[in-house]
């Protein structure tokens, strides 16, 4: 049984929250840290409920509401979230207070919200969804793990729709740590539009929250079909190439029309990406997306949003069109993501 994307909501460093469209031009930034452009959350949640929510929870709740509204569904039958770092700001607040007050007099709200599964729980509470609720925390394949779970549930037929999201926030503390580890480029002279020309180590730090309403019966409002998904860990890039080619073959695809790739401007990471990309399809149009949302563990959710929008529109966003009047057949898109060569993921979408 196939699984289809019926609704989407995306809060990202681009202005994506007000529509799943490629009409708006993407913005470039002179920064090594990309922060989400956020909506007015009072339009989504009432003041009494919102006051306890930290930024990442508000992002999750708002993007899930956008996805459900887009799908025209009232209530999800399952809520499944992938997040590598969870409610980082609340965790940081809670731990700081533990030190400050010597493990005494701790605020209950920061403690309650310091767990990774708070986002999925808050979404379920708001939708009054008492069904399956799960959170996957698996570094940079957290979103993909959540997606696999949702697909299996939908294929079993135990539910007819599921709300699935990938979400991670960037805080001052986490950004400082990434900088210290050398995972972020120097901000001086950096423009995200030229990210891939950079020869230095590191990428640009990002964040985002993309949610998808998935269904097992398509209609003409669906964006795309999720044909296949695979995660591959702790292996060589040759092995990744082999498994990716096998996945394409299983799905009757010689070369994907479009390949959304993991390039992030880090020389070492990009060498691995190039090995895989070059083995997958010389005829494929290769897109890069991390200059739009930054590098973060669940950025594949942003890539899946981008892929679904492209498939639905059957054309590329303006910034990816290299030759005027160039026609590109877009029936399927493969997303290849990895970070630091440890966990790799492949998501294959096709038109409905």
């Amino acid at each position, binding site marked *: 049984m196939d699984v289809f994307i019926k609704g989407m909501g995306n809060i990202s460093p681009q202005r994506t929250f007000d529509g799943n469209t490629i009409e708006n031009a993407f913005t470039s930034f002179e920064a090594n840290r990309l922060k989400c452009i956020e909506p007015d959350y009072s339009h989504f949640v009432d003041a009494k409920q919102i006051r*306890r929510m930290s930024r990442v929870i508000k992002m999750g709740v708002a993007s899930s509401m956008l996805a459900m509204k887009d799908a025209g569904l009232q209530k999800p039958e399952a809520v499944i979230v992938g997040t590598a770092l969870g409610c980082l700001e609340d965790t940081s607040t809670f731990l700081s207070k533990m030190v400050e*007050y010597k493990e005494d*007099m701790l605020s209950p709200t920061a403690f*309650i919200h310091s767990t990774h599964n708070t986002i999925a729980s808050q979404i379920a509470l708001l939708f009054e969804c008492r069904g399956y609720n799960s959170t996957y925390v698996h570094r940079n394949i957290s979103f993909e793990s959540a997606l696999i779970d949702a697909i299996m549930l939908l294929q079993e037929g135990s539910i007819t729709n599921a709300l699935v999201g990938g979400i991670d926030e960037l805080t001052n503390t986490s950004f400082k740590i990434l900088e210290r580890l050398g995972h972020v480029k120097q901000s001086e002279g950096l423009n995200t539009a030229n990210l891939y020309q950079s020869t230095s180590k590191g990428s640009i730090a990002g964040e985002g929250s993309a949610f998808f309403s998935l269904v097992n019966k398509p209609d003409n409002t669906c964006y795309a079909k999720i044909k296949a998904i695979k995660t591959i860990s702790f292996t060589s890039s040759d092995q990744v190439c082999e498994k990716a080619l096998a996945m394409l073959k299983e799905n009757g695809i010689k070369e994907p029309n479009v390949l959304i790739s993991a390039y992030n401007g880090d020389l070492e990471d990009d060498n691995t990406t190039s090995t895989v990309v070059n083995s997958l399809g010389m005829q494929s149009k290769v897109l890069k997306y991390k200059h739009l949302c930054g590098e973060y563990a669940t950025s594949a959710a942003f890539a899946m949003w981008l892929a679904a929008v492209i498939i639905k529109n059957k054309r590329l966003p303006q910034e990816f069109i290299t030759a005027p009047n160039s026609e590109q057949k877009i029936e399927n898109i493969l997303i290849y993501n990895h970070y630091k060569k440890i966990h790799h993921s492949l998501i294959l979408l096709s038109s409905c």
Partner: protein
Amino acid sequence: MNELIQNLKVQIIEQLNLKDIKPEDIGDNQPLFVEGLGLDSIDALELIVLLQQNYGIKLARAEEGPVVFKSVSSMANYIMANKK
């Protein structure tokens, strides 16, 4: 006493993140829970923490909670009666 009540209002707004409420919006004798400010059980825990952090007062018996946290005035009275 008036100063203590004003301080408490500011501290309650900050601790409970009541962004849309100003100190002057909270009546001295206005109920804090259910009606009035509409606080709930998690807020009660936050108020216990507020008393400990700012005034060094531990609520000795849980059954005192509804009386102590009835309003800002009742909180101020409890602080005056128990401060060291």
